């Protein structure tokens, strides 16, 4: 049994804050949209929570951003090696094959996480896009919708408030679906709770098979 220190403390803090915010934001977002159908809370409460957590999320994003860019780990962990596209694609395909087939037949996970290479190629692409495109876009469009007058310039840049709203709602749909998949994937460690525990403790236990 080999223990790998995969998730340093800032990352763990960031992750859990992010997780809670995302879930609540998705739910309050749903309440705001379906005020006539859903009665979890009042419109005003939903908006207040949504706004507050939006800002928490922004702040949280900065934790992530500062940590990964300050330690330059971003470039090792998140940035897909686009300068080696063939090798990367092969690896990605192998990883996809693992999730779709290998895992069923008891193949080993082709990816072995290390502190410097935490994500398999599929994760790398997904998280890179999420962290660099989706979340910032969601935060920015959220900000615009939070005060369309104050951030009118941004709104105009994106093509009007309707487009901003469309992006925000579109990403909301994506994140809602993603979180389900993300949670499921988190259970695919050597035990169901392995990855989840790791996200608390920071140490991933790698079951060494001989």
């Amino acid at each position, binding site marked *: 049994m080999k223990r790998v220190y995969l998730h340093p403390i800032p990352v763990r803090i960031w992750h859990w804050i992010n997780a809670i915010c995302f879930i609540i934001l998705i739910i309050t977002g749903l309440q705001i949209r379906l005020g006539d159908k859903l009665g979890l809370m009042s419109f005003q409460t939903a908006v207040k929570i949504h706004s507050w957590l939006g800002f928490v999320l922004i702040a949280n994003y900065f934790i992530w951003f500062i940590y990964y860019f300050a330690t330059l780990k971003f470039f090792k962990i998140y940035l897909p090696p686009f300068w080696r596209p063939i090798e990367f694609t092969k690896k990605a395909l192998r990883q996809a094959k693992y999730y779709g087939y290998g895992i069923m037949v008891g193949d080993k996970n082709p990816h072995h996480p290390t502190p410097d290479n935490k994500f398999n190629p599929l994760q790398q692409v997904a998280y890179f896009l999420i962290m660099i495109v989706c979340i910032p876009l969601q935060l920015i469009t959220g900000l615009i919708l*939070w005060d369309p*007058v104050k951030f009118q310039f941004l709104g105009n840049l994106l093509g009007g408030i309707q487009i901003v709203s469309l992006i925000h709602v579109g990403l909301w749909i994506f994140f809602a679906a993603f979180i389900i998949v993300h949670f499921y994937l988190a259970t695919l460690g050597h035990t169901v709770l392995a990855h989840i525990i790791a996200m608390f403790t920071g140490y991933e236990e790698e079951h060494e098979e001989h």
Partner: protein
Amino acid sequence: MKLNNKLFYIFAGCLFLLIFVSFYLFSDNITFAKSENSCLRCHSVKRLPKVLSNGEKMDLYVDREKFSNSVHGDFSCTDCHIDIDTSTHPRPIKIESKLAYAKEVSQNCVNCHMEDSLSPIHQGILKEGKLSCAECHGSHYITPVSQLKEKSEKCLRCHSVKRLPKVLSNGEKMDLYVDREKFSNSVHGKLGCLFCHKDIDPLAHPKPVIIESKRAYGNKIFKNCLNCHPLNSISPIHKDFLKEDRMVCLGCHGNHYIKSKAQWSKETNKCLRCHSVKRLPKVLSNGEKMDLYVDKEKFKKTVHTDVGCWACHQGINFSNHPRPLFIESKRKFTEKVTSGCFRCHPKNVLSVHPGHAKIINISTFVCVDCHGYHKNQSVKAWKKKVSTNEYCMSCHKFNIVKKLPSKEKLSMKVDLSQIEHSVHAGFSCTDCHMDFSKDEHPVYKFKNRKEYTVNFSRNICQTCHTDEELKENPVHYSISKTASCVECHGAHNVKPAKLPAGVSEKEYCMSCHSGALTKKMENGEKLSLKVDESQILHSVHGKLKCSDCHKGYSTKSHPIRSFKSISEYRSKAQEVCRNCHAKEVSEYNSSIHKALVSKGYPEAPDCLSCHGYHGVSRISTDDIARYNLCSSCHSKESDSFKESIHYKAFEEGKEGAPVCSSCHGAHKVLPTSVANLKDSCISCHSEAKSYHNKWLYNPPFKLESFVDVHFNGSSCSACHASGEKAVILTLATSESKVLTLEELSKLTNWDIEEIRAKLDVNGDNLVQKEELWEFLGDLKGLVKVELKGRLDMVNKNDAHKIISKKKAIKDCAFCHDPKAQFVGRLEINKEEGKAERISVERSAVNSAYAIPNIKDFYVLGLTKIDVLDTLFVIALIAGIGVVAGHIFLRIVTIPVRRKKKEGQ
């Protein structure tokens, strides 16, 4: 024998010749009637009378004895009959009639009885020429007047005895008694009976004569009065009596005991004996005091002095007077007495003068009002003596009114003092009224007052004030062609034409414009040019001169302008205001009011409608005036406003309480779809943003810009007024310029009806979202357009119903609930006037097509794109599905993995 016969013939011939020659030679000296004796030699022989050419028989007999006893007994016949040529008489003379001959002969009476020496009665008879001297005095046997009386003795012998009266054929009783003494004392006492009773033949009397009635007999006898008192000798009044045949002489003068003037005067004096003494007046039953005093001397000078008291005061005589007489009031007594004036002065005579004719028919006037009572003079004498003005004013001082066919009334009353104070002071009435005089009073028939005044001006004023004089002032000249002089200058109180030098401009202008001047527009409309000076003085323009506004007009110049209509005039009037109020006018010119005026709406207001012509008031300082001014046209809006908290404040007189112009502006009143009314709200509620921001913010920060988000997207009234709310969509260009219906029509080449048809294809008066997107699709092919959105009142007028702050909408869900109660409206502005609003399916804003078409309008919840909710559900199901599928596959493949593990 032959010879003897011859000699006889010669002798006889010579003798005949001798006689003939001697006749011829001595005819001058030879006459048959050298003296009366020689006349009477023939005429004292009773012979057959001469038959005259008119068939009359003329007796040529003269009683020698009677003639010699007459007063002319010593005269020779030819002294009177100077027409008889003794040398040729009795050669037959042609005599037309007895009367003609008598007249001819009577003319010779004058040779001895000179006309001057005759009494006035005689002179009158001669003048009349109906009677010759011979008629009364006889022809040959002329009796002295003193002997006439003796003849009456014979009559009186019987008639002075009181006997039974004669019963006439109509049953009347006629007293034949004559008081001898009274008769002999009367003026006719000397004349005897037969002078009047010519019907009586003294030789045949007392043979009974048939008399029909007393009146008929009176009528017959009175004609004889005229013998001595012929028509030309009697007064016109007397003449009229006779003409009228209403009265005969006897009616007034009596029959046998006719009084002389002296006798009448004596009776009058008897009355005056008491009434000329100043005594206490008689107190009448109504309490009035009636002075019974008559000034004797003055009465003697009046026209009625001859007729005396009884002529007017009939019923009063010495048998019943001074027994007290019941008199109700002075006026009643006057009316009663004056009604008797018409006995002598019949109405038809008095009506010769048309003015007089009218006056005598006015019951409120009685004769004595003008003519006086005891001091009245002869009109003729008075007329001669009196001045023209006094003469005219004798009637025109009264409130005489002339009624015109137009039913207008024209006062004929003249205030002489007005003339005295006018420029025409010193003029006599006839200086202007040239066709009138003391003797002439033409009657004019005017249809109406206008015709009268215009005629008056042309025929009277312009006689002196000629066109040439008027042309010196062109305006004056042009006015004189349409208006009458008296309208401005007055009739009798004529104002000076030239104002004194140094007169103020205002006085100069007002000298004409204070009158009822009007100007006729080319279309026939009439504009009053009358200016009420007090209005200006009380206005904010009180200190201005006329020319400050009316540029180009001064005491020196007065251009004549012409306008097609009053509305054209009023549009020009704006230029007057612009001189000083350029800002306000230019603001007004961009207003909806001006647009409506230009479009020709008669009720649309211009400067004058609100500010008045001359009574210009500063409306801005008077809230009530401001409010009333707008509400006079906008009553519906005013009613809505009355429901508002604003009106309540206004009514309570709170300072700064808003009225219409506080929000809509005074001059730049714009259509509400264009006007930025929010700024109007904020101009008073300047703290609005910070107040809203106290609760209206998105945590965690309180940004005012979040209030702006709401202010931009909805009108204030959307939350602060009661009424139905709507999502209002407006067509705009991609540069956010609001498109008007007209612009749209121009850009697309569709006419306005076509645009409406394309918007509502199925014609259900509701634009379904499909119709809207299709329309926009068509439109976008031609022009770049998009829809702007805002939240506002469905009924614009509801925006006036502002509610209190407490009642205002504060619940976010009111708008942000996807099922919020909003209807949809498409607002299309128009170049002029109010915007058009068309119902639109509200769910159009929830359609995916709203994203490209309504780019800038986003209300959380309200405008959510419905299809995204479906996508959310699909994504959720997909996520769960992938997981579930994977788990399922992993469970299914458990044996495979176990096998592999076991294999290892």
